[in-house]
């Protein structure tokens, strides 16, 4: 059974007042991951296939074509894991 770890390479907490979380997907799963997230989330705005502003379950975030996603305003690791599970599995 697939897990979030099958898709995620790294999770980086950023420095800065924003306290964003950046999730980097495994290179070999990048295209599959981007496609899946685009299918499940609602597209609000995009630019030339480079960046997609998306909404999913009241969470607003940006997905980059390079296989990286930036979340903001998440309170805990559990919340992030739940969100990633819903987006990826």
């Amino acid at each position: 059974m697939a897990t979030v770890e099958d898709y995620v390479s790294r999770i980086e907490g950023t420095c800065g007042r924003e306290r964003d979380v950046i999730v980097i997907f495994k290179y070999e799963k990048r295209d599959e991951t981007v496609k899946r997230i685009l299918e499940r989330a609602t597209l609000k705005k995009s630019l030339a296939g480079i960046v997609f502003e998306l909404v999913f379950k009241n969470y607003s975030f940006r997905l980059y074509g390079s296989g990286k996603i930036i979340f903001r305003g998440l309170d805990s690791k559990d919340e992030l894991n739940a969100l990633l599970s819903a987006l990826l599995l």
Partner: protein
Amino acid sequence: MLDPYKIREDFPILKRKVNDQPLVYFDNASTSQKPKQVIQAIKDFYENHNANVHRAVHTLSQEASELYENAHEEVAKFIGAKGIEEIVFVRGTTEAINLVAYAWGLHNLRRDDEVIVSLMEHHSNIVPWEIVSKIHGFKIKYIGVNKDGTLDHRSFEKLVSKKTKMVCLSHVSNVTGIVNDVERVAKTAHDHGALMLVDGAQSVPHMPVNVKDLGVDFLAFSGHKMLGPTGIGVLFGKREVLEEMPPFHGGGEMIKDVSFDQETKRCSIAWNVLPWKFEAGTPNVGGAVGLMEAVRYLKRIGMENVKEHEETLTNYALPRMQDSSEKIEIYGTKDPSKKCGIIPFGVKGLSSHDVALFLDNYGIMVRSGFHCAEPLHEVLGLSSSARASFYIYNTREEIDRFAEVLKEIGQF
């Protein structure tokens, strides 16, 4: 005048692509790329000369010791130090400042003493002093920063007094690229009987730096920001100051004798001569060899040429960035005469990390966040910043491409 196109041929990594785009490396304030000469020197050391240094009679150890000592000599000449006794090899700028904060600070600072630090410092020139002050209870006072990011000299002149024992200042801000008037601050510090420590992490790689001209007592910098490998850095200290300081770390190499007294049942220890007194344990010999080659590489180019090239790039970049979109904000002074090749910026409506991720899609590497200088961001009213920083291998064409992508970001 240097030729960046010729220089680029020496940097293998610049040939690679990132996200199917040619790599544009604008994160040089974090770390620099390495020329093949440095890579080859490290490879040659491990393939042909590797041994532990000092106190061995065999041939390989003598070769390694000679290389290691030559590396000290090369660095000493590069910054105008009197000799290798003033050059202590450490892991990097952070360790160099910690060495001073602990070895000098614990030995010399008392409750009523004061250390002055600027608010534009990297955390590595704030946190060690805060830690040591908790042990001895001395006060730390912070020099203010003007709205444009420049140092508030009047604030410093109000703070400095006979209680001041040490003044700590970066030569160049790692966030704004602003070049501080270190000579002026050092003179005032010395007039009050204080010592002066300068964080040279962002200056030594990018401009001619001479410790005698600056009049500083300590200068800390890192090898990896000046074409050398990671894990090797330098603390310059005036000989007379280092002589008076106790060691930082204890162990092999830093001692001359450790003798056991049968009556007292204690060991008595005599320190080694400078600089080895401050280099406990097996040092990073391979790193030192790499640093030596990096210094030689920079000397061949000429530090005046390095400085001029970065000034040219900065002057070229500032208006192009500004004109790329109304949403682009350049932080800190835009006066090129006050800064070197570091440009902090933001895009209205986007976090710095969004900007960095966006640029990454186009193969352009910039830093985002606080850059380990949170107090300065607070003073400037910034939640974070993106930062483009240039070096000898960067070109105008790369800046054009950068400005084109900023224009696209501005349209998002």
